């Protein structure tokens, strides 16, 4: 079973790194769709269904958390969302983001093992 993943990051290099390393985790087969900003990502979300969304926190125009909030505002079933961030845990912020719908974090820079550890719980629930 192939999981369709939406990768949202203004950096093309980071999108490729996320996709490359996620493939190497062995957590499953993935089909990726890329978006370079939150607006394009919301349009993709309307066009097709996704099993998982990975979104960068620090983007111009629309931050990752703004994207997550707008995603939820669209209503309906939304897939699990993991936030990619350079910033280490800030407890107060993380709670607000969890309340908004972020279910996992991947902290840059990350190894294959680290992205696997961050996303395995989400992905294992999806393929179960």
């Amino acid at each position, binding site marked *: 079973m192939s999981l369709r993943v939406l990768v949202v990051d203004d*950096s093309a290099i*980071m999108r490729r*790194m996320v996709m490359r390393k996620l493939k190497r985790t062995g957590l499953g087969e993935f089909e990726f769709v890329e978006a370079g900003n939150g607006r394009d990502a919301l349009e993709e979300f309307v066009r097709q269904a996704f099993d998982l969304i990975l979104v960068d926190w620090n983007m111009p125009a629309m931050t990752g958390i703004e994207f997550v909030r707008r995603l939820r505002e669209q209503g309906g079933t939304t897939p699990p969302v993991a936030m990619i961030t*350079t*910033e*280490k845990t800030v407890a107060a912020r993380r709670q607000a983001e969890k309340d908004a719908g972020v279910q996992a974090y991947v902290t840059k820079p990350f190894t294959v093992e680290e992205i696997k550890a961050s996303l395995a719980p989400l992905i294992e629930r999806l393929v179960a």
Partner: protein
Amino acid sequence: MGADIGPDRTCLKHSECAGEALTKLLASLFESDVHRADDSGEGLDDGSVAGVVSLIGDVEWSLWLGLPRETAVAIASAFAEDEIEFDSEEMGDAVGELTNMLAGDLKARLSRVDLQTTISLPSVVSGERLRVMTTRDTPRERMRFSSSFGPLWVEVAAGVREGETRAAGS
């Protein structure tokens, strides 16, 4: 003439964190050793690509990551796991991301000494023999390093003293 006291450098008290953050970043991304190099030699800079980001809050810093051409190509290509040309948009992308990660680690280090900051979006500049120019009284700390990719440097320029905030309109 009185003695030239020079700029107040108390706002750079924790700037060595930037060098520590760079060392950790290259080790974790590439398992590359980084060593402090000779800090002598002001004058024209040898960086050809530089990323810059601001950290604002309990400190007010500009953080620079400078890479000479050969170092930039080597690091960006290793980062992308693909050949990156110096004059490509991908070079800006790679250096911006590296600067962003550097700032993220630096932010975490500052927070461990109770200094909270917010990071700006990074910008990247490129050209031959870039020169970072600040006003003469701006406290700056440049740290030069050698790595398996080549030489590189980080610089912290400080706007205000730690714990102080800039007055509105100034």
